[in-house]
């Protein structure tokens, strides 16, 4: 097997036994990036010199012995996570030349573990989108079919991992932006419970919804990365003040007697038939492995989650993106008549259409006369969605759903209809609204394109969903499939 397709577990073992060095592994990954990037375009910035420097440092540490499991393993980072000294653009003209003066907490933690960073990945601008077509620079392509989208907004990260351009990657998820691209690209993607992973250094989109999470080729790898990044952070006052377990200890392939609910609302008429078939087989597999599956669960407020989200997220975004005014950093228009003129033009030229659309939606929903009818109403609906899910977890250990209603769609297919695009997140959005964790695992193929199974757990129930995902993975072979690049 090619070095660049090793899992973290496999690579870590070879590094420990000195059968391969981090420098060799990193060179293999960098060569793969060089080979594929003209066709794939998963990266905004590739950092080969930095990566090799970090690899050599990792090799010294590995020689001394007692290096942590992520030491020397090449990874990619979504370009909305601040990396000191390395351009962080959010795939926007607004931040095209922005170089952060600090590392995000997750980056500090991963560098301490010996991560080798190969580059920053492409995304939908400011994380707003479901296809990576909203990148101000270029779209990323799906490694399984280059005429199709990789999903979004963490499309670059998911594509890189699927294609062997990184052993693992970091993404961020506000309405499905880790899970949906993971599903489209046939890899594992986890959105942790809100508050589990620090948001310090994550460029904010919607502060009550955003979370950083791992994108990997194996569930075990996902647990390893989560171990490194999870945990309270004094610099993020929304991070949960609770100790973090060893998530790898939860990976016991034993699920007999676990009660799993399948919410009816997630298997609607409009679900692509091939996707439905894959999901039915995957759920049958879990039953075969000993779980008790109940198809009678109903979550009636599910259908309101999309509308509520498209009020809440843009509202929060309108506040978070107010800082882009051309004064302290980023793109700056200076040929105006007045300061306001400069500011309005900075924002007109620096932001893409989808970003502007959402800022406008949010500004409208928060404005005088509309705040109660829209923002407050949406937050009350959010409470009902959350309570409904909490109640379900009184009866079930976890819930099973498709990650996305369709497989990866064609580039250009949905760009002209914003509302159509929003529908691709209908199964992932309620999870962010409730703040609970969700993981997407490869569950099969439909028309030669990957389909993901989404497993949801109660707040801080990562151990449960990882265990289910692991058990399913170990009993199937989807994780061994590779795109024909």
């Amino acid at each position, binding site marked *: 097997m090619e070095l660049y397709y090793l899992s973290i577990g496999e690579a870590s073992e070879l590094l420990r036994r000195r059968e391969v060095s981090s420098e060799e592994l990193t060179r293999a990954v960098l060569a793969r990036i060089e080979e594929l990037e003209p066709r794939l375009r998963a990266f905004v910035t590739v950092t080969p010199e930095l990566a090799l420097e970090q690899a050599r440092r990792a090799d010294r540490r590995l020689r001394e012995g007692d290096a942590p499991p992520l030491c020397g393993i090449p990874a990619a980072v979504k370009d909305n996570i601040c990396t000191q000294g390395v351009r962080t653009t959010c795939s926007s003209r607004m931040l095209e030349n*922005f*170089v952060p*003066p*600090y590392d995000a907490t997750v980056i500090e933690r991963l560098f301490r573990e010996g991560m080798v960073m190969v580059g920053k990945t492409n995304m939908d601008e400011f994380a707003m989108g479901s296809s990576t077509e909203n990148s101000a620079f270029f779209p990323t392509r799906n490694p399984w079919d280059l005429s199709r989208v990789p999903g979004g907004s963490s499309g670059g990260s998911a594509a890189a991992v699927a294609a062997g351009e990184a052993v693992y990657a970091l993404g961020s998820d506000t309405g499905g932006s880790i899970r949906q691209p993971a599903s489209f690209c046939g890899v594992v993607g986890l959105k942790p419970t*809100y*508050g589990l992973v620090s948001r310090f250094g994550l460029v904010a989109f919607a502060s*009550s919804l955003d979370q950083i999470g791992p994108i990997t080729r194996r569930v075990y790898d996902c647990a390893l990365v989560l171990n490194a990044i999870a945990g309270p952070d004094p610099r993020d006052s*929304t991070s*949960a*003040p609770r100790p973090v377990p060893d998530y790898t200890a939860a990976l016991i392939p034993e699920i007999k007697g676990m009660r799993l609910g399948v919410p009816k609302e997630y298997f609607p008429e409009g679900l692509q038939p091939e996707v439905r078939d894959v999901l039915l087989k995957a759920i049958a597999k879990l039953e075969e492995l000993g779980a008790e599956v109940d198809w009678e669960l109903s979550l009636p*407020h599910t*259908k*309101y989650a999309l*509308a*509520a989200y*498209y009020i809440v997220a843009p509202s929060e975004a*309108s506040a978070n993106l*107010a800082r882009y*005014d*051309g*004064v*302290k*950093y*980023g793109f*700056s228009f*200076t040929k105006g008549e*007045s*300061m*306001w003129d*400069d*500011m*309005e033009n900075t*924002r*007109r030229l620096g932001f893409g259409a989808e970003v*502007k*659309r959402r*800022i*406008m*939606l949010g*500004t*409208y929903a928060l*404005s005088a006369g509309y705040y109660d009818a*829209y923002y*407050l*109403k*949406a*937050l*009350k*609906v*959010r*409470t*009902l969605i*959350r309570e409904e899910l909490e109640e379900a977890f009184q009866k079930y250990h976890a819930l099973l759903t498709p990650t996305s209603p369709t497989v990866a769609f064609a580039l250009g297919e949905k760009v002209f209809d*914003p*509302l159509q695009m929003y529908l691709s997140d209908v199964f992932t959005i309620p999870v962010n*609204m*409730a*703040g*609970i964790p969700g993981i997407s695992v490869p569950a099969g193929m439909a028309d030669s394109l990957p389909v993901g199974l989404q497993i949801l757990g109660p*707040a801080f129930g990562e151990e449960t969903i990882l265990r289910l995902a692991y058990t399913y993975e170990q009993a199937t072979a989807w994780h061994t499939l590779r795109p024909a690049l």
Partner: protein
Amino acid sequence: MPLSREEVLHIALLARLGLTPEDVSRFQEQLSQIVDYFEVLKEVDTEGVSPTFYPLPLENILREDEPSPSMPREKILSNAPRQEDWCFKVKAILE
């Protein structure tokens, strides 16, 4: 359409987003379509329901008031489009 042209211009002003006339028409149509979709929330009875601002029940996260070094000024200004005398420089705000 739920949104008038004047409303779109007003929102753009609040958000300090410069819009071309084509932008205004396009956004008026798209935003109206999306806002129409929001009507579905009227079906939900939220009488007596409190809003969820954040999913975690955290309140008043405090720390000791201990001074620590701030980020050095060079770093803070390192991305400044225009600067002078350790300040960010903009056009006059007050006439």
